[in-house]
């Protein structure tokens, strides 16, 4: 229901245990490392002065950042190539690392990968050579176009005074060349269109070879070599190409089978190596934040308080003499703020995402998620109240969640659906048909928006005022918690602002609705006093704290600014409160849209038309109005409420995770 308590873990252990400890942290996934060397430099690293810690403490004066390490990137690339050769998908899974059978050292991984690569690369290079040959032969098929000429390729490639070559030109360059045929020192014969472009046979006098070469180069001619085996009469060449193509298919199938057998017997070993390497790469990143001496290493990080015992137990098992200390965050906050990890119950947890979209709460700020989640659901339901459509939204949310549990939007959708259905029940609205639910449950109280326009609008503003008052409370709490007297007591979102707002509200109720309220004199005094406090908040706060100077800028400038500020305060009270009228307006709008669709259905005048309009109307309302209401709700939350009390300038908790680096 709040921001999770964090503590700083400081750990010292024998250097020999380094790898094991890092692995434990990577798999634990609940620790965010900070640079231990800086911690020690700034004397934040605490070890208790007891005798058994003597060596570790003495050692601290010769401390330095961890230096020597090799990034296994190259090895990882080798392993990835192995995967590619075997056509395997990379599978990152910590289960491999937790199983002692697959828990391999880097040396072991290296020998394994080298061994596998040796085994596989033979077959694989044969396979790729075959693939290349297949492509080459496909291109040589263009020689078939010479079939009718019965020309002997051997003869034309070994002419005494002419040279002949086969190659490709792009369509554009072939066109360019054709525009200038009269000047070209060669005969250009078009054979066929192949994948790479246009296949051409070029015959030119040997004496002009140099010129021909330069001209061909200027049109980016790429030669296709003709192997000796195919330098025969064209029909025979084509026959040989076909024969060889069939052979290649057979050979390739054999090699693929060979690789498949290998893959099946060793894929676990290979995946285990990949995982060991992935872990090593995570460790490389982690090592950048540890400090070492000759015998020990020092490590610092943030850990959620409730995971402390669990972590200590897991680390202590690794070796005797490991010191693990947890420091309370209360004294660390001045030096650096802990990261924020939100902890909320299932009902509002998905809304954390919407809160984070605005900003992560600071560690010492109240987590607004519960307030946000409940209010957002209420506002959405009030604006989009319909039992049938609410159920549709809920079911859609559930189905999508089942398919895609990671996506929090779908979780939110399901919750909004429930709220919509709840309000829809009391609005007596089922897929746009009113008075249907009330027939089934005649004894329940119903509030049909279209029949109670003024009530609905009034209640929305009332709810808005209520929510604003809660925001004031949040704001005051947040500010006083960090000791901000100026804004907490005297600011426009502080106690003075709240008093002013409440006084104004009661005055409005008193004048407009003749409700009992405070005596006029008292109202005036309260308004004057709180306005005075807000205007003079800086000097007053400084007086209270005994700080000097009273003003941080020119006195005249301060009061001009403050004067405008109070004007804006009045305006925003008004606009923030009135803004909530949209909740009622959208509830009305929702019904109004259906009235329009019913009317259209009636105009069509037959059952088909009614049914068509029923479906069309519901579809449009669910998608279009649903979206609009979702945005309007978010706008109310962010703009009218968050801007009052929420700063959201925290840093999200980002623990070390076992994943691809």
């Amino acid at each position, binding site marked *: 229901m709040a921001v999770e308590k964090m503590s700083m873990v400081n750990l010292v252990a024998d250097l020999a245990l380094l790898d094991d400890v890092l692995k434990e942290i990577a798999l634990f996934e609940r620790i965010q490392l900070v640079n231990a060397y800086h911690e020690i430099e700034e004397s934040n690293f605490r070890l208790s002065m007891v005798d058994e810690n003597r060596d570790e403490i003495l050692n601290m004066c010769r401390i330095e950042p961890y230096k020597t390490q090799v990034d296994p990137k190259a090895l990882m690339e080798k392993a990835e190539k192995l995967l590619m050769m075997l056509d395997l998908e990379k599978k990152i899974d910590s289960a491999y690392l937790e199983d002692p059978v697959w828990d391999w050292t880097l040396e072991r991984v290296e020998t394994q990968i080298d061994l596998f690569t040796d085994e596989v690369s033979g077959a694989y290079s044969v396979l790729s050579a075959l693939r290349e040959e297949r492509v080459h032969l496909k291109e040589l098929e263009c020689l078939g176009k010479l079939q009718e000429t019965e020309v002997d390729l051997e003869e034309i490639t070994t002419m005494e005074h002419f040279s002949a070559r086969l190659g490709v030109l792009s369509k554009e360059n072939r066109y*360019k060349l054709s525009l200038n045929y009269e000047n070209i020192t060669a005969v250009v014969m078009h054979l066929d269109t192949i994948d790479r472009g246009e296949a051409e046979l070029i015959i030119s006098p040997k004496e002009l070879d140099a010129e021909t070469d330069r001209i061909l*180069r200027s049109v*980016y001619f790429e030669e296709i070599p003709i192997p000796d085996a195919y330098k025969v009469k064209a029909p025979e060449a084509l026959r040989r190409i076909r024969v060889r193509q069939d052979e290649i298919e057979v050979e390739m199938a054999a090699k693929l089978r060979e690789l498949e057998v290998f893959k099946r017997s060793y894929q676990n070993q290979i995946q285990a190596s990949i995982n060991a390497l992935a872990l090593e790469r995570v460790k490389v990143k982690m090592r950048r934040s540890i400090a070492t001496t000759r015998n020990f290493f020092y490590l610092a990080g943030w850990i959620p308080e409730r995971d402390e015992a669990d972590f200590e137990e897991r680390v202590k098992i690794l070796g005797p003499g490991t010191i693990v200390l947890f420091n309370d965050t209360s004294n660390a906050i001045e030096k650096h703020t802990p990261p924020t990890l939100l902890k909320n119950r299932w009902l509002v947890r998905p809304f954390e995402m919407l809160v984070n979209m605005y900003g992560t709460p600071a560690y010492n700020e109240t987590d607004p998620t519960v307030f946000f989640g409940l209010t957002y659901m209420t506002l959405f339901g009030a604006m989009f109240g319909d039992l049938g459509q609410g159920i549709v939204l809920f079911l859609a949310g559930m189905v999508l969640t089942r398919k895609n549990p990671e996506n929090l939007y779908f979780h939110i959708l399901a919750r909004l659906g429930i709220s919509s259905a709840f309000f829809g029940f009391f609005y007596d609205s089922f897929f746009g048909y009113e008075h249907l639910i009330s027939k089934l449950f005649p004894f329940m109280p119903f509030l049909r928006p279209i029949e109670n326009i003024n009530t609905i609008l009034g209640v929305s503003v009332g709810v808005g005022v209520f929510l604003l008052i809660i925001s004031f409370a949040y704001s005051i709490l947040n500010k006083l918690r960090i000791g901000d007297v100026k804004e907490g007591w005297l600011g426009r979102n502080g106690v003075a602002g709240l008093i002013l707002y409440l006084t104004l509200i009661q005055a409005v109720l008193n004048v407009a609705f003749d409700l009992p309220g405070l005596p006029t004199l008292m109202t005036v005094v309260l308004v004057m006093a709180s306005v005075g406090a807000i205007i003079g908040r800086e000097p007053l706060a400084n007086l209270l704290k005994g700080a000097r100077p009273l003003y941080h800028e020119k006195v005249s400038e301060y009061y001009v600014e403050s004067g405008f500020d109070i004007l804006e305060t009045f305006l925003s009270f008004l606009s923030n409160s009135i803004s909530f009228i949209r909740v009622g307006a959208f509830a009305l709008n929702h019904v109004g849209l259906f009235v329009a669709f019913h009317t259209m259905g009636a105009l069509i005048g037959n059952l088909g038309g009614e049914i068509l309009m029923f479906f069309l109307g519901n579809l449009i309302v669910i998608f279009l109005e649903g979206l609009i209401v979702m945005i309007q709700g978010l706008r109310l939350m962010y703009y009218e409420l968050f801007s009052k009390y929420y700063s959201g300038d925290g840093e999200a908790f980002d623990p070390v995770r076992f994943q691809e680096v």
Partner: protein
Amino acid sequence: MSNVRKFAAVNVKVRALEGQLLKDQDYYKLLLLDHVDEVVDYLRQETWYAAILPEARKVDIIELEGRFERNAFEKHEKLYHYFTDAYREYFKVLLMRYEIENLKLFLRMVIRRESLISITDHLIIPHIYSELDYGKISEATSLDELSAALAGTEYQQLIEYYKDEEPTRMMFYVEMNLDRLYFKKLSQRTEKLDAADQQAIGEVLQRNIDMLNIQWVYRGRRYYQLLPEEILNYTLLNGKYFTYKRLKELCYLPSLDDISRVLRASPYGFMFEQTEHFELNFEILMDRYLYKLFDKLRMEYPMTITEPMVYLHRLEYEMRDLFTIVESKRYNISSEACRKFLIRELRG
């Protein structure tokens, strides 16, 4: 999408950025200064360039030029983010220019057997466009290694084609081919834009292609004795005045004098009038011509892609003029002489 929707935001940005460019007044004052340090001081005190120059510290010429270049590049990248779809792609291809310039530099350095590692840190790398592995490229010490580092890119083949040529010839070939590649891509991308933008930009592009073509024909013939067939194949086909037919005639003229004569009679005759500093003037005259053309197009096609394009070119030309001014101070060239080499034509 309507033009207002497409260009309103970027044009406002461009107007604001144009306010940062130097005025004619600034040019006059800069020309009269004696020393590089004075130029830096002036820019720092009187112009927007204060924002990219370090406060109160001596700046050497290399650093100064580096800062100007980076500024131009960052402005270009900034504008990229204002576009979507085909327009974004177009601006992305414009960034290819930086990659081409880097490659030319690499080639020259490899030929001179200089280490590439020393310069990679100072290079401007257009990450939005480029997919080259600069780490691998910087380790290359020979043409073959450079070619290997470019494996899988369209540039590798180019180097492979010409690597056996004598170095200066090879540079001509490869540079020409790289420019060709860039302009070809640019033409393809231009075709995806809306009709009005195609017209506006197309005019500049076609003129630019004309000037590149005649440069290639002229230089290929004068310095490198290329075959007419060969040079004709390298030219780009979508020029404005020099259509394929005219280009073919030009390429097959018997002598260099004939070529000069024909070029002088063409709309680009102004580029061949001067004989002194021919190569240098060639570029400056070409840029001046484009500068004026842009100004004209901007009037003719309001609310089109011309606005950002004009700005980018002005920025580029201003940067090169600043280089010229700074270098002229370094080598004690008079302000009158320096003025001749500026792209911006100062009145009076």
